[in-house]
């Protein structure tokens, strides 16, 4: 599951037209991971037209975001910044059901990936 802001709704609008998506995890900068694989997930996504502003249930993930990106707190630091950036916190949920997962050990995409077909998911 991921989200996007209604100020940046293209992901959601595109998914409503064509649910086929891919997610590439290939840059571990700032993640804390050491020598991770590169991973490509292809799947089918849904993006309901329901705007979420509550953190409910994702407190730990939000805390992790602020740990990893401490400067992000500037967007809530004073009333002017909160007016300026409230759109960022109006989110649309996107849920992806994987259909195929490809990964490259050590992120070495010069080699053929390992592939898992996710035929019985969702």
């Amino acid at each position, binding site marked *: 599951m991921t989200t996007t*802001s*209604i*100020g*940046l*709704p293209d992901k959601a609008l595109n998914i409503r037209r064509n649910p*086929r*998506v*891919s997610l*590439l995890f*290939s*840059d571990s*900068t*700032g*993640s*804390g991971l050491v020598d991770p694989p*590169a991973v*490509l997930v*292809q*799947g089918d996504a849904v993006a309901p*037209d329901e*705007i979420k*502003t*509550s*953190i409910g249930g994702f*407190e730990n993930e*939000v*805390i*992790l975001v*602020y*740990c*990893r*990106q*401490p*400067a*992000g*707190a500037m967007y*809530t630091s004073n009333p002017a910044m*909160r007016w*300026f*950036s*409230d*759109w*960022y*916190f*109006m989110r649309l949920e996107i849920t992806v059901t994987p*259909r*195929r997962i490809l990964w490259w050990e050590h992120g070495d*995409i*010069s080699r*053929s*990936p390992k592939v898992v077909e996710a035929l019985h998911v969702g």
Partner: protein
Amino acid sequence: MWDEVKRHLPRFSSPVLTGVDGDGYPVSIRCAPELDETEQVLRVSLPGWIGIRQGPASLLCHGHNQLLWDLRSFMVRGTLEPTGGETWLFRPTRFVPGIGMGGLAGMVRFAFAKRRAARRYLQRRGLPRPKIDWVQLKALQARARQPSTPQPPE
């Protein structure tokens, strides 16, 4: 448009090329595009196993520092054409600036544009502008600053 591609692309060592595979799913891979000034196209080497097809494609350049800050990004829309072997032509059609382009003024323009986009999204659905629970967010930020909370890597 080509001038913008030429100016900004060299700042990124491995942009992400996305096209469509034989099953109709997007497929993305990091690549090292080479500028072809004469044709105003990019040449990219793609492995055969990727199964990418001729057609619409995009090139995403995105980066940040270890604290997920100093964000910078742009995307180039275009089309992908085979030339035989593993070399493909990416023909740019549109430069789409992202975050971190154009300094502080660019950042302000970006935020105002997204604020307007959010307003349009709400107006088209007849929805009022939702209120954000800032108190809750500030509380979570305070928890993130506590020493016991796992800190990001050095």
